[in-house]
């Protein structure tokens, strides 16, 4: 088990002017035994980061340490990492047994030890009855377990996952993510998990590093990311449905602050925010509020609006409401009943749960 440290890690593909900065000055420490998620949209550099840690790519700049050993220029085989690929990469011409035994055969372990270890890991993952089958006879979920077994059988120092669940159907994916989390906690192997699915990252990982355009946006526990997103990108990327973001300005009237949208909608703000937000008086800011902190009802809210659409999901009912302003601003909230399109409603906002972001830098103010 090791601690993985990335220092000023940079990977540039191609030469200027046609170069692409895939990973940009990334500093990250993954604790011993931790399950860390690398989360971001496609092209954000998360898979490249994983491949750099695996040794499949050599960084343009920066260092990678496993504990205190510099592994930056070591080939993959000398790093003792294991990786589960999105495609599983289970060799189609080998039986399941030979697939799992492959890394051990390369290490030239004695035959009886190979058999014993393969059987043990297969039993652990519940695939001991599949050992004589060919991969073409397996389902997606079974293939995924074979890929896991092949990675685990070596007892690696670091476990790397490259979107291992994205080829499974929705039901199996939910089952598998719980299984992966439990597995990692049982074994205590330092693990790095790449995904673009924020829900998957939140469920599985101890901490999540959110990446965009190759840069680290925020590193924190799922709760920290959800409750205190450091900028607009993280705020809208984490959580489904995403946080409502509304542009407006802060105005002061008689020692009280208000959030004003186009001089038409006026939201009074909590007194506790006064000290920080009074610096922004007269300036544009972005207000962020999660749908579950917005209540839509027929009467009694602080803002008037018209229903844009209401979405019934069984356990929750989302209502999108258009504010009575020039620009099309739609706020998503939870409703007490389904509403008709165009119906007049009111919105109530939980003022203790609002976030403010600087309109220029998009960074969190509060």
């Amino acid at each position: 088990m090791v601690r993985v440290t990335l220092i000023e890690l940079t990977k540039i593909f191609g030469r200027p002017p046609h170069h692409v900065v895939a990973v940009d000055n990334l500093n990250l420490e993954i604790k011993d035994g931790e399950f860390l998620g690398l989360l971001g949209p496609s092209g954000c550099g998360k898979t490249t980061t994983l491949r750099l840690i695996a040794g499949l790519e050599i960084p343009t700049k920066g260092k990678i340490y496993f504990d205190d050993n510099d592994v930056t220029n070591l080939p993959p085989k000398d790093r003792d990492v294991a990786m589960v690929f999105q495609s599983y990469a289970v060799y189609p011409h080998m039986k399941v047994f030979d697939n799992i035994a492959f890394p051990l055969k390369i290490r030239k372990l004695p035959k009886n030890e190979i058999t014993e270890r393969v059987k043990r890991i297969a039993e652990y993952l519940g695939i001991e009855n599949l050992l004589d089958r060919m991969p073409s006879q397996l389902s997606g979920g079974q293939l995924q377990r074979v890929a896991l077994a092949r990675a685990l059988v070596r007892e690696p120092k670091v476990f790397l996952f490259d979107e291992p669940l994205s080829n499974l159907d929705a039901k199996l994916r939910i089952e598998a993510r719980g299984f992966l989390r439990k597995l990692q906690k049982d074994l205590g192997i330092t693990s790095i998990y790449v995904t673009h699915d924020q829900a998957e990252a939140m469920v599985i990982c101890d901490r999540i590093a959110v990446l965009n355009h190759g840069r680290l946006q925020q590193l924190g526990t799922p709760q920290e990311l959800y409750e205190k997103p450091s900028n607009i990108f993280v705020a809208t990327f984490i959580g489904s449905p995403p946080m409502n973001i509304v542009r407006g300005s802060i105005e002061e009237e008689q020692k009280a602050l208000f959030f004003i949208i186009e001089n038409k909608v006026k939201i009074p703000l909590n007194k506790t925010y006064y000290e920080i937000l009074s610096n922004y008086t007269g300036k544009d800011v972005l207000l962020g509020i999660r749908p579950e902190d917005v209540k839509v009802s027929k009467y009694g809210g602080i803002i008037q609006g018209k229903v844009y659409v209401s979405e019934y999901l069984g356990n929750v009912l989302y209502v999108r409401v258009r504010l009575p302003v020039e620009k099309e601003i739609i706020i998503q909230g939870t409703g007490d009943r389904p509403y008709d399109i165009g119906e007049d409603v009111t919105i109530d906002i939980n003022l203790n749960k609002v976030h403010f972001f600087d309109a220029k830098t998009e960074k969190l103010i509060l």
Partner: protein
Amino acid sequence: MVMNTKKSINTAKIIEAIIYFVFIVMILIYIYPFMRLVLTSVGANPNTVPPQFIPSNTTFEGYELFIFNPSMSLWLINSLIFTFGVTLGSTALAIFAGYALSRLNFPGRSFFFWFIIFGMMMPGIMLYVPLFILLIKMRLINTYIGLLVPPMASAYNVFLMKQAFDAVPKDFEEAAIIDGASTATIVFKILLPLIRPTLITMILFNIVWNWNNFAWPWFVAPDRKFWTLPLGVYLTSWSYTVKFWQYASGAVLLLIPPLTLYTIANIYFIRGLRIAGLKR
């Protein structure tokens, strides 16, 4: 409505009949040369040129000439050496070159690839004279090296292997690299089994081409002790009067091994052709 359906069924039947008729005609056109070859090989009549389609007399003289020929075993051994030597060398070369062109990053990679493609565009026979001069200067005429090594360089084989390797997803290889596999393990244990249909198809084609190759052995190793079966058949039957039945029986004998091989490997052939999608 009912009338219309009946009508369209009848039209479909007529079209089907026409298609079958065309197929049968095509098959007959294909079979005719084979029939002619086999029939010619069993009838000896030096006075009829061209030979009769159904010969008036039956003889196995042509077959006897070759089967009981004391040089036959030498020709057979030479043919086997040539066929399998060239096929083996060419396959090995194609695997290594194809892997390098597909997977290794080296300066000039695409130049080399296009250079090889360019070589494919050239008819092989065009190279015979320059190669012949080169081999004379190297004193390699009438030697096994001169006979076997030049035909091993096959642009078509390299191209086929490169394309086959290209089609294998990189994940398989990277998984093996992370597991600690060497390049040799990756090529022989992972990549080659994955491209097996293409590989087998290529080897089969090569065996047939080399088995039937007439011009190259005659060009660079005309000495009697290097004669392969096609040379033996041609040069034995050659005389001032052409004995068609001898040629024909020699050709039938030559045909038997590739035909057997084709039949046995039919299943691979069909699968491989789907992957390779082209033929020289």
